[in-house]
């Protein structure tokens, strides 16, 4: 137990420091950097992609839901690959084709994807409707939505067309790296947690809590759509 606590502490301290940097307005600096940059800047964009994933609570919550009942690394790899294929596709296509979708609506759907995943973990669809939706298809579809969200955010940055494709690919690679880092951390904590005696009674409540968080995200973004949408 002490090991678990130590690991959790270490992980949370690692997870916290980018937030501290963000609070000091580095994000504004990022924006200026992207506006000014042109040409191929693989490493900086990979860094931005990785950080987006590691500090993006929406993606992290969804991934937490996805790996809640995945025990083997092989299964985790399959689901991560599906998610990656999904969001890489819409990220690249969305930016290159200049698909402007309301970011609030996309983020609201991402919030609902968290709700969906939590309900799925509670086997709600089997109990309510007698069907078990294919988790792999759902992961791919939600990957598409998450990528669309990323695309709208990148389009807001108005990246220079000079070196756009290599920079986008670098950003994508960064997203993958960030996802692997985040998932490894979540997996370590999950695997320790699963072995504890309290887990069976907590897993149900944990998924209800994840669902509540998803509802908050969806409501926050939907409200933003109505309140700020009229300004845009």
């Amino acid at each position, binding site marked *: 137990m002490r090991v678990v606590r130590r690991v959790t502490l270490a992980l949370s301290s690692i997870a916290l420091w980018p937030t501290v940097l963000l609070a000091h307005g580095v994000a504004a600096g990022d924006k200026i950097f992207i506006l000014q940059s042109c040409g191929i800047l693989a490493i900086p964009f990979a860094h931005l992609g990785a950080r987006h994933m590691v500090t993006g609570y929406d993606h992290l919550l969804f991934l937490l839901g996805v790996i809640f*009942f995945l025990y083997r690394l092989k299964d985790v790899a399959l689901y991560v690959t599906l998610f990656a294929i999904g969001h890489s596709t819409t990220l690249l296509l969305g930016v290159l084709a200049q698909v402007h979708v309301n970011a609030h609506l996309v983020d609201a759907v991402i919030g609902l994807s968290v709700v969906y995943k939590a309900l799925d*973990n509670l086997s709600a669809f089997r109990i*309510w409707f007698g069907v*078990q939706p294919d988790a792999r298809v759902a992961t791919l579809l939600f990957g598409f939505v998450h990528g669309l969200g990323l695309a709208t955010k990148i389009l807001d940055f*108005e990246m220079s067309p000079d070196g756009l494709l290599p920079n986008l690919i670098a950003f994508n690679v960064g997203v993958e790296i960030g996802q692997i880092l985040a998932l490894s951390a979540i997996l370590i904590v999950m695997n320790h947690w699963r072995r504890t005696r309290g887990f069976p009674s907590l897993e*149900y409540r944990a998924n209800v809590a994840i669902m509540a968080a998803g509802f*908050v995200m969806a*409501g926050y973004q939907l*409200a933003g759509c109505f309140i700020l949408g009229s300004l845009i």
Partner: protein
Amino acid sequence: MTAPQPASPTPTSWQLLRSTMIAAVVAGALLVTCVLPAEYGVDPTGIGRVLGLTQMGEVKLALAEEAASNAAAEAPADSVIAAAEAAPGSGAPAALNSRVSGATRSERTDTTKITTDGTGAIKARPR
């Protein structure tokens, strides 16, 4: 088998429905008392103002409005600065300028005491 294993003690349909409703109610309460006041200055219960969250949301909303009006180049009657800055085709740069104009236009800074140091301006998403 690659499909995830369901939770071991299968809940009943009613249990599940109750849990979902609890989740939704908790989420709704958090939204109404904290998230909406802090992010959008919308405070239906008044709790947000007591907690000081509504004031934060109002600053953000003011900045968002400013950025939006600059980006749209609509030039409202009072702001000559905004009209001058919002040149055609200026998307994100207009948002950066809006921070400057937000500081110079006194009616905003007087009432809401903003330190326009970027944190709010990032939220003010330009279009």
